[in-house]
């Protein structure tokens, strides 16, 4: 009988900011253990929160085999690997003073604005072992900065946001980044008459990512149906399952089923070609596809596909160089948005800036964007690059052409 165990331990400290002041501090700890057993083509699962008797948990998992949930029995073979990524981490007593200092600096530097929401620091360890000899361990920590910003005198619940995950905390860089947004916030510009490139966040890919999931693709209900191995987007588009441990989002080098990837990456879209599908052990076996390292699971659930490690890879080193020092519309905040099953996108833009020669120069009126996803990532695409207007915020943008509905 094959058996595997995944243990996930999370400790986090969280500071809440209300109206330019730190008003709460939260300590959270979580320990989850899941044991999965495989026999007769079925899976049995038992999970626990907190410390547990693993032998008893394994017995519970064996009892669940009678549920008859079909699942492939193969496990990752052999190998030991440990990656401990030790970044800066605030200890319990350090978090509140550091955040108070940051909020104080922000309030002082930008007296016309009100700052709120959260700063979190998270320490995460995942440990996977199986009966085939695999023993993988990952440990990392990160800061999650998530600030809402409201102009004093505004009737909106928030006017803009500043958010990023980073493996270090640098108040000066955060203040500098926020200044990039706020120093020109009152410079209200008319919408330029000429057609400009738009710089949209990579989240726009969420609308097409589900079409790369093996089950959907193989069922014939994917927008990319029948195009595996074919050019579907511009050559500048590469979309990877990214499990290199230099990520700031605490994605281990293995997925929740212990799958590891060559070079810790798997190209789903490679140079515009649909190179692979998003799989985990069950879908890979059902459709004879390679594993993409995309298994995700609840602490006591059957694994399924997850997309937390998906990354749109930059095609160019510099946004400024990509645009040749020219102007573009930087979409700083959208309000919803969606795509029809024909690929037509509608994207209401809550806040946009005029981007010029590597800088934000002023705020544009509200508008919406529309286009088709195959145009956005196809012939209209200019390139994909890190937003070089910011020092600390790790943001990749898609430079493309879309219809601006004023």
């Amino acid at each position, binding site marked *: 009988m094959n058996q595997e165990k995944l243990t996930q331990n999370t400790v986090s400290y969280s500071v809440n900011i209300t109206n330019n002041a730190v008003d709460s501090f*939260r300590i959270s700890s979580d320990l989850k253990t899941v044991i999965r057993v495989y026999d007769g083509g079925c899976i049995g699962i038992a999970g626990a929160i907190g410390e547990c008797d693993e032998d008893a948990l394994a017995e519970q998992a064996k009892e669940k085999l009678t549920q008859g949930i079909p699942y492939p029995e193969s496990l990752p073979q052999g190998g030991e690997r440990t990656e401990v990524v030790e970044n800066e981490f605030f200890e319990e007593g350090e978090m509140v003073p550091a955040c108070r200092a940051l909020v104080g600096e922000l309030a002082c530097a930008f007296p016309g604005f009100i700052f709120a929401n959260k700063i979190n620091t998270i320490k995460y360890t995942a440990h996977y072992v199986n009966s085939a000899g695999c023993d993988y361990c990952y440990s990392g920590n990160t800061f999650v900065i998530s600030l*809402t910003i409201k102009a004093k005198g505004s009737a909106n*619940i928030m006017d803009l946001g500043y958010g990023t995950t980073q493996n270090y905390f640098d108040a000066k860089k955060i203040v500098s980044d926020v200044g990039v947004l706020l120093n020109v916030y009152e410079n209200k510009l008319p919408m330029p008459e000429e057609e400009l490139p738009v710089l949209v966040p990579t989240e726009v890919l969420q609308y097409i990512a589900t079409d790369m999931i093996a089950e959907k693709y193989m069922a014939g209900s994917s927008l990319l149906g029948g195009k595996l191995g074919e050019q579907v987007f511009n050559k500048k588009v590469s979309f990877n399952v990214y499990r290199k441990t230099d990520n700031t989002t605490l994605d281990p080098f293995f997925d929740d089923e212990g799958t590891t990837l060559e070079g810790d990456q798997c190209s789903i879209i490679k140079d515009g070609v649909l190179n692979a599908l998003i799989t985990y052990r069950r879908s890979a076996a059902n459709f004879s596809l390679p594993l993409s390292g995309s298994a995700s699971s*609840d602490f006591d659930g059957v694994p*399924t596909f997850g997309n937390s490690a998906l990354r749109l890879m930059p095609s160019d080193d510099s946004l400024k160089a990509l645009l040749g020092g020219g102007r573009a519309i930087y979409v700083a905040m959208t309000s919803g948005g*969606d795509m029809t099953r024909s690929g037509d996108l509608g994207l209401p833009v809550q806040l946009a800036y005029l981007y010029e020669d590597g800088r934000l120069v002023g705020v544009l009126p509200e508008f919406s964007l529309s286009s088709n996803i195959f145009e956005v990532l196809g012939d209209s695409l200019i390139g994909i690059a890190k937003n070089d207007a910011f020092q600390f915020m790790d943001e990749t943008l898609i430079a493309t052409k879309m219809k601006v509905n004023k």
Partner: protein
Amino acid sequence: MIKFRQGFYADVRVEDRFTTSIRYRNGSLEECKSSSVKKAFIRVYDGTMWYYSSTYKLDDIQEELEALYKNATANFGVYSTPVVQKLEAHNKQKLVFVDNCVKDVPEEAKRAFLTQRLAAFEGCGYIKMTTALYNDRYSLYEFFSSKGSHIKYDYQMCGASFSASYADGENTFDDNLQRSATTFGALAVTEDDLKGMVEEDVNYLLNAKPVEPGSYPVILAPVVAGVFAHESFGHKSEADFMVGDETMRREWEIGKKVGADILSIYDSGLIEGCGYVPYDDEGTKAGKVYLIKNGVLAGRLHSAATAADLGEAVTGNARGVSCDFEPIVRMTSTVIEAGDKTEEELFAGVSHGYFIKGIKHGSGMSTFTLAPSLCYEIVDGKIGSPVKIAVLTGNVFETLNDIVGLSDKCEIFSFVTGGCGKMEQWPLNVAFGGPYVAISKMNIS
């Protein structure tokens, strides 16, 4: 027995949450689990800061509490602070679902509820993938506070969702049908319901045409109207966005005209369903709060902290999605009140526009967005051909003033998948509803 110290306010919330999740894809069992998770969330307030701990170590609650006391600063006047003054103290037990608990329903019965209905998807060549999902939850809450509260109450929901992915060549469409109930015995999905969905979806797949983007009259179905109320106005009624902000207080002064005269929206934690919250996570008793009454701003949603800051009454809307998070101001069941027209009268008033029958999701800031699923053209007061619409958008206040008609029956919905998201906390169980709502113009793309 929890021992509270002098010089601090403190409370402890414990949730024992039982859930079931069963999923069949294309008729094959993919998931079948029942979980019990018991956690605690502990709060200490010293008059200046809140200190929180989320823990699974239920035997160590006293130690966790003592650790929070060490972080805080003793303040023997804490019970005179406006926030603590607002916190209620109740000694109540309200266990509604003990005799009809989903924990007592055999797993086989829950699986059979799905498998007995899958035949409805058979025989349709356009269906490429089906998913049938059963979820339930029974939560037993217990709340203790240093003001003397000891509350015990329960919450229960169960539901099923049947999804289908359709394709005709490169033309694809996804849809689902969801039903929920507070007890397993009351959960009802018929094979005819599902066959009706398939028939309508296939028509949509084969005949829906893109719309020309622009501004059009629309009629929202009750489920869409409910999401619209939640997204467009409900979030703006959450008072934590107004704390310490004089501009917001002036802009959101009670009595201000904010919508059409026929419009009334309320939030209530007393309605049976996903938004049932008899006591919030600070121990405040639920009530019914009008947010808009006859087009006029009538109230807002509060925690103790926001009620103290704004000098208003608590409303029972301090909620955390689980014992992983602190309570913040959230909605419960948010509903547009019914009007005085029949459904037919509403449609008769539209010569050319669109009927938004289903919804995938919505969001709301000063501009709101609704992403619809099934939509139809309205021609000369009649429902016409299916159309494809990516999003509907509009300025919240302009649109609230553009409401020109409400039908005379209100429907309230509880979704069994997803929930409301606010900042880091998602998904929160909420309900929403309304009548059919006619709006003179919305932006469609």
